[in-house]
């Protein structure tokens, strides 16, 4: 089988490997390379990965629909460790460092490398003035590697490596301006908050291997079948919830979304790539990847749907009041991610992934356009100080408008097709979920056009044209990615032209084999599609509401710009609550962060006073006392014994020395006396013997 694979599928390991290599080069010797070399090398490596991915994509769709699953192992990573599963059966836990190419992962790979490449090119212009470009591009390439590892992994263990890898890169890139306190704080916050989700995620992996005896995605379906688990089995629900908890961290859902708005401290292209298009979608990806488990756990699916819809609604409401252009987009991202989870929660995983793809286009574009505005205004991010940029930045205005229309879901832009697919699926499932999604769609249109009207229309509120730094369109390296993404924001959704409008739902069908239910009888299958007429009615309904949202934004921010302030004033406390993100940050600070800090201080005091004071210092004091005793013993007893011996010898020597006269005749006399003595004794003995 392996020999018959075409080139790109066979050597798919090259796709993440190339960015890894350039990242290694950048981080080791990058400081010494010319900026030109750095940019060409790093953009080139991502382009190479992208071309390889395109190759793999075409090779994959050339295969029959039921054979579009290629698993290639590169090397044995974790050797087989035997253990007993929860069910009692014997199993062995092992992991090969392997890559799985199937419709889902290839879609993600195209996004990561394609959008990633455009953002790399954009970064050349945007980061021009920054120092440490090699570091920036090195981290970006490392991120692309980690993200590719995440989406291409063939089992949970390898995926987790990528999962943590993107977290590290996110940390490094948010804190890229490490001399800024806010940036390093935001980086730390992102890492710590993600750690909470990752801990749950890891537990989910452990529980999954304990229950199913495998970590390989390709084996999950069969293992679920073999274990004969019924829907709603507690262990399966626990696995699904733990995995989803990890996803809430990475994908910034309630209750762990608080890190993403702060993450806007990173450079804008980083926000576009990591915090809009790719990394934050990893949570949606993993839920879709383990859809077989989720489908067996209806309570977990319900949690996913509720959390997703609530996040979509609340984040959209927070986006409405933000004044920082990037914060608006950050909350918008959280809200759109909520949409994706809503889709997954109602069982429409394909719709969620479809929205993920279109969102990558238009949200990436929105961030890049915002970056272009910020670039033109030399770093100004406050919407209240913008205004009237339409004439000065016509291209930026145009692409922002396209992206806003796309995210609002105006026909026939990309967002319309994906969002209405989700809303349609939600409607089939639960009216309330649909209503929340519907309302959020209107809010999305409102806050997006609020952003546009504030930034581009009306009179300039900030500084005007500078003689030295006139407000100008960005350089070509930044414009081209904007235009390409704009094209995709318009047409990117057409890959899944819905049947109701005469299309064939191509993308959903492309993804379907993967998300297909392994054992259909026991799975909770979504209700059949509503009537075609109903679907069409829903579309028209949502279009109308979106149009109303846009109109409202126009009315409030162009026609009567004095009204929003009055409303904010009238709503008082509520406005402040929304502005502060419903005080969730304050709640975490008061409840968890302060408690943790206090606990650490207490532990520190314990460490200083008890461990150091009593333990370490007490030990030292005891040692000193013991050595004093030892010194005394040594001086008086050991040395004393030696000296006593010497003194004894000396005394005897004084006595005996008088025998040594130095006169040879006296010695002779002793000898003769001794001889006579011995002889006398001998004769005495002899005389006795005779007697």
């Amino acid at each position: 089988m392996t020999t018959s694979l075409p080139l790109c599928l066979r050597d798919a390991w090259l796709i993440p490997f190339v960015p890894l290599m350039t990242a290694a080069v950048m981080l080791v010797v990058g400081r010494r390379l010319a900026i030109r070399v750095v940019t060409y090398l790093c953009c080139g490596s991502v382009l190479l990965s992208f071309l390889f991915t395109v190759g793999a994509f075409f090779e994959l769709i050339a295969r029959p629909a039921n054979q579009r699953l290629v698993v290639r192992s590169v090397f044995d990573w974790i050797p087989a460790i035997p253990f007993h599963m929860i069910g009692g059966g014997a199993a062995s836990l092992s992991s090969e460092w392997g890559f799985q190419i199937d419709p889902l992962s290839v879609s993600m790979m195209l996004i990561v490398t394609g959008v990633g490449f455009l953002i790399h090119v954009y970064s050349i212009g945007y980061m021009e003035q920054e120092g440490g470009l090699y570091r920036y591009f090195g981290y970006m390439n490392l991120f692309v590697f980690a993200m590719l590892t995440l989406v291409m992994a063939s089992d949970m263990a390898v995926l987790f490596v990528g999962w943590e890898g993107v977290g590290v890169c996110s940390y490094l890139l948010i804190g890229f301006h490490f001399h800024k306190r806010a940036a390093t704080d935001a980086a730390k916050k992102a890492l710590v908050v993600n750690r909470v989700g990752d801990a749950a995620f890891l537990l989910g992996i452990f529980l999954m291997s304990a229950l199913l005896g495998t970590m390989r995605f390709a084996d999950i379906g069969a293992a679920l079948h073999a274990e004969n688990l019924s829907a709603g089995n507690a262990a399966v629900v626990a696995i699904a919830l733990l995995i989803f908890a990890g996803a809430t961290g990475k994908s910034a859902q309630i209750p762990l979304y608080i890190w993403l708005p702060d993450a806007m401290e990173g450079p804008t292209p980083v926000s576009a790539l990591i915090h809009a298009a790719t990394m934050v979608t990893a949570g949606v990806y993993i839920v879709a990847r383990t859809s077989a488990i989720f489908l067996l756990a209806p309570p977990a699916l319900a949690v996913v749907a509720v959390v997703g819809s609530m996040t979509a609604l609340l984040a959209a409401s927070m986006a409405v009041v933000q004044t920082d252009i990037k914060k608006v987009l950050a909350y918008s991202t959280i809200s759109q991610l909520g949409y994706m989870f809503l889709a997954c929660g109602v069982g429409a995983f394909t719709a969620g992934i479809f929205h993920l793809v279109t969102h990558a286009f238009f949200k990436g574009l929105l961030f890049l356009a915002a970056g272009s505005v910020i670039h033109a205004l030399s770093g100004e991010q406050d919407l209240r100080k913008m205004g009237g940029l339409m004439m000065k930045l016509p291209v930026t205005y145009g692409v922002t408008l396209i992206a806003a229309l796309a995210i609002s879901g105006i026909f026939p832009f990309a967002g319309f097709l994906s969002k209405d697919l989700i809303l349609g699926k939600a409607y089939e499932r639960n009216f309330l979920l649909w209503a929340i999604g519907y309302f959020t769609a209107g809010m999305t249109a409102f806050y997006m056009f609020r952003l546009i009207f504030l930034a581009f229309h009306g009179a300039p509120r900030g500084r005007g044209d500078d003689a030295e730094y006139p407000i100008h369109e960005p350089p070509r390296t930044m414009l081209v990615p904007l235009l390409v993404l704009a094209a995709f924001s318009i047409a990117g959704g057409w890959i899944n032209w819905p049947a109701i409008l005469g299309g064939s739902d191509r993308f959903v069908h492309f993804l379907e084999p993967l998300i297909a239910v392994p054992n259909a009888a026991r799975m909770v299958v979504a209700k059949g599609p509503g009537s075609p007429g109903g679907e069409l009615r829903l579309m028209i309904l949502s279009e109308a509401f979106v149009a109303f949202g846009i109109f409202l934004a126009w009315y409030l921010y162009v026609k009567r710009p004095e009204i929003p302030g009055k409303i904010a004033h009238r709503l008082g406390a509520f406005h402040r609550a929304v502005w502060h993100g419903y005080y969730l940050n304050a709640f975490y600070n008061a409840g968890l962060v302060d408690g943790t800090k206090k606990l650490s201080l207490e532990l520190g005091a314990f460490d200083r006073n008890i461990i150091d004071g009593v333990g370490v210092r007490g030990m030292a004091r005891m040692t000193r006392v013991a050595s004093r005793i030892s010194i005394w013993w040594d001086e008086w007893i050991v040395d004393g014994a030696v000296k006593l011996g010497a003194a004894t010898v000396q005394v005897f020597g004084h006595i005996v020395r008088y025998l040594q006269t130095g006169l040879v005749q006296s010695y002779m006399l002793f000898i003769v006396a001794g001889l006579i003595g011995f002889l006398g004794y001998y004769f005495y003995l002899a005389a006795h013997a005779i007697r």
Partner: protein
Amino acid sequence: MISIDHYLLLSLALFAVGVVGVLTRRNVIIMLMSIELILNAVNINLVAFSRLYGSVDGQVFAIFVITDAAAEAAVGLGIILAFFRNRKTLLADEMDLLKW
């Protein structure tokens, strides 16, 4: 008839004269001569027992002793000569450097 006892008595007398000479005379040359007397007393004993037991071993041993005595006299006189040159004396009770 001269019996073994006569030889032994002569040897004893000679030995006693030698020992008394070594212990009492102050002149080291005379002490050396007294030592020769002691050696010769031993020789008489050796030859007498050789005769008594009809074995030649004792006589051979006596020859060795005479040779030894000659060598000893040469070395001893050499030492005495060297000593005299240093200290201008031959009296044994003035040779007392080798003490504590």
